[in-house]
């Protein structure tokens, strides 16, 4: 198992590097130009100077390795220094966003909490809703509850978040006035009232994401439960005279959770990548929002860095999911 994990890790590093190179080269071919979003009143000579000051003069590979060095070494140290107050930040240039002319790492540090809160809660609630629905649907297969659950979860992933999001704002924010339509990133929870405000402003994006996530996970949960309910060991357990609750909740549920846990683990990176639209609609200034805005204004260092982080997350969680599966399910052993 250890050797398997190590081998997967060894493969993960070149994978991530290749991805970063691919994205870098692609961005390098991009026709967009960081000066394209500047006002037309800025004269062309000045634009050329700006282009030069952004370091666009170097050859591609030089820029790539510079970026890679900064991404893997300089930025993490700076971020660590910022978080802990240790004096470990190295001297020298950092990855600068073309648009803000400031280090990308600092912006990401500001963005991550919002994303984690909104999207993470959306995922968490999604799981919390999905598991009981999946269990009951499977246990009472073809009952009205199952049919309804199936229908709702189908709706959940058939209706795009950009549609539900818009409808939610219209209903709850404009017509009913229950929730704010914009997310205030500066809000700090100090007391009960500010907590209520936080809960209110986070409610709609979280609800939209939770609905979407819940529908997928509940499908997996149901399928996995069904697989296990038909196994011989369940019959044996019943035959032994165990209570129905024990049979379902202890025996079946525990075994059914194995594939679901890995599905959940694999899904975690999508927490970051998939919420771009939701962040956009509810004006949650998270990572996804930073990414799409960077794409709009051709801020390639920002795009490059965020995609790289996403890639690391995906590779990492896929690895975790595989290892988890091996640990949870004794039948699966690699090597």
């Amino acid at each position, binding site marked *: 198992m250890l050797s398997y994990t190590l081998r997967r890790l060894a493969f993960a590093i070149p994978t991530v590097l290749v991805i970063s190179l691919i994205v870098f080269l692609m961005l390098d071919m991009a*026709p*967009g*130009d960081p*000066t*394209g*979003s*500047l*006002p*037309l*009143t*800025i*004269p*062309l*000579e*000045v*634009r*050329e*100077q*700006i*282009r*030069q*000051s*952004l370091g666009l003069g170097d050859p591609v590979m030089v820029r790539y390795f510079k970026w890679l060095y900064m991404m893997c070494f300089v930025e993490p140290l700076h971020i660590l220094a910022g978080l802990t107050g240790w004096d470990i930040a190295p001297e020298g*240039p950092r990855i*600068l*966003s073309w*648009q*803000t*002319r*400031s*280090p990308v790492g*600092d*912006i990401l540090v*500001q*963005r991550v909490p919002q994303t984690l809160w909104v999207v993470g809660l959306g995922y968490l609630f999604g799981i919390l809703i999905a598991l009981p629905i999946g269990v009951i649907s499977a246990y009472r297969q073809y009952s009205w509850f199952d049919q309804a659950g199936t229908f709702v979860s189908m709706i959940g992933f058939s209706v795009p978040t950009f549609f539900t999001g818009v409808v939610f*704002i219209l209903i709850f*924010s*404009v017509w009913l*006035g229950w929730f*704010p*339509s*914009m997310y*205030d*990133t*500066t809000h700090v929870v100090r007391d009960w009232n500010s907590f209520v405000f936080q809960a209110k402003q986070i409610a709609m994006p979280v609800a939209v994401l939770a609905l979407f996530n819940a529908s997928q996970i509940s499908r997996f949960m149901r399928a996995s439960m069904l697989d296990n309910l038909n196994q011989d060991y369940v019959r044996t357990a019943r035959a032994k005279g165990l209570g129905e609750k024990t049979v379902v909740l202890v025996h079946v549920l525990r075994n059914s959770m194995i594939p679901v846990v890995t599905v959940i683990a694999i899904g975690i990176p999508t927490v970051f990548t998939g919420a771009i639209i939701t962040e*956009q609609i509810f*004006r949650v*200034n998270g990572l996804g*929002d*930073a990414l799409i*805005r960077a794409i*709009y*204004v*051709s801020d390639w260092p920002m795009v490059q860095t965020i995609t790289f982080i996403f890639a690391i997350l995906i590779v990492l969680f896929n690895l975790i999911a595989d290892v988890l599966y091996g640990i949870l399910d004794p039948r699966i052993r690699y090597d």
Partner: protein
Amino acid sequence: MKTRVALLGTAAALAMAPAMALAERERGSSGHLNIIYWQAVSTMNPYLSGGTKEMNAASVVLEPLARFDNLGELTPWLVDEIPTLENGGVSEDLKSITWTLTEGLLWSDGTPVTSADVVFSYEYCTHPEGGCSYRDRFAGIERVEAVDDLTVTVHFEDVTPNPYLPFVGAGSVIIQQAQFQDCLGARAPECTDANFAPIGTGAYAVSNFRPNDVIEFVANENYRVPNQPYFETITWAGGGDATGAARAVFQTGEMDYAWNLQLAPEVIAQMEAGGRGELLVDFGPLMERIELNFTDPSPDLPPDERGTRAHPHPILSDIRVREALSRAIDRELLTEIGFGPMGMATCNFIVAPPAMASPNNDNCLVQDIDRANELLDEAGWERGADGIRVKDGRRLELLFQTSTNAVRQDFQALIQADWREIGVEARLRNIDAGVFFGSDPGSDDTYLKFFADVQMYASLFEGTDPTPHLEQRRCGREPQPSTQWQGQNINRYCNEEYDALWAELNREADPDRRQELVIALNDMFVQDYAHLPLVARGRVSAASTTVGGIVMNVWDSEHWNQAEWYRIEE
């Protein structure tokens, strides 16, 4: 003297409008203000961004020596009076201008503002490795000299009839030397703290800045007006979209001020009915136009001759065709569909300031299909079987390009329909704005290369002086291979008379004569149908009805008088 009269007027207006407020309001008495910029602010240093949004946000903190007021007139800001020829501030030879700072000015950190800061601001922006966005404001300056602690003289290389570019207006602000000392040139982007929280003389100081997200301001304790600003704190949020921003002001009341609401007129009207806010519109020099290519963009030509004056355009070189294209367009309808109250149909190249706008060209405002058809008939273009005109075997077909943008695509569709009526076929094409307005000489899709027959975009000029804008249409200023396709004479217009007249304008110091010359140049350009003006576009913002003191200003930052904004008590 016009400037002085205007000054007096403005001063009076300034004194009167908040007069009553002045008596009772205290600094910070209005509490908290919420501003939403759906295009979020990315830096607080306007020299590093060049975007209007950054300039606006910075204008709350950083200030120039003089501003333009809402009427486009110069107003002393960090000085006591505007230097002129009369008061000796501008030298007789028109080669230098001397500013004297108001006494006792303090930075928000409590240190005094000196002429050294002014000189430093010049050095900062003109550093060759700095990539300063407002570099052109300091063009033609020989040196900037600190005469004494409060006096600065700008020496120009040449005769400069309009010396009010450097240190005037929101794009040419004074930054603190002490803070930016180590941020010159290539090091400029490294000074993140300074760029995100510059120390300024303005009414507010930055207390928290998150790029592309939110800015928090607190009132500047050392602001020169003792009882201002009225708002204690400002949250300047960014993100979302224009609809959301409008909704937040008009409907939910979450926000007090929203900037740049380019929305469909009906949408705005409907939201405004919510009654919580009002729309603020004012017209500046921003104008949506169609450029007609005077050169042949045919891809069959060799690359170094394509789109150059060596090959005149086979169709558009004929002024009758150009006029017909102009007359066929229903400008009023375009305005109604695209901008509603936020736009005005126009036939002028220079649409503002009002005094500079020519009154002689209103004939194009009404669509005249018959006249357009006549003109094309005269020019020898005969209707073909499919209704499209043909001459010498060539169809009257034009490639019509613009940037990707909902309103522009609506305009394209409408104009395509108009032109079809007179037998002109327009092939539509839209290009991503980042590419279209980019300056990459390798891309064939930039508006500079103009490898199309006609193209549509909007353009404006900074400040109130159209001279540089008019200069763009001089012969030799066109983008061409020898200049790496740089140059602003987009349609490759070339007219000796025009060039001569512009040269005269560039030497003229008398304001009245300048005004005449501007109008003459405008008329010459427009009546040549060298390009087709469509709509003068206003700046559109929305303000909550509970906020007073807002004076919309298109010549400077919209937040030029932020200090005077206050909460209207019920």
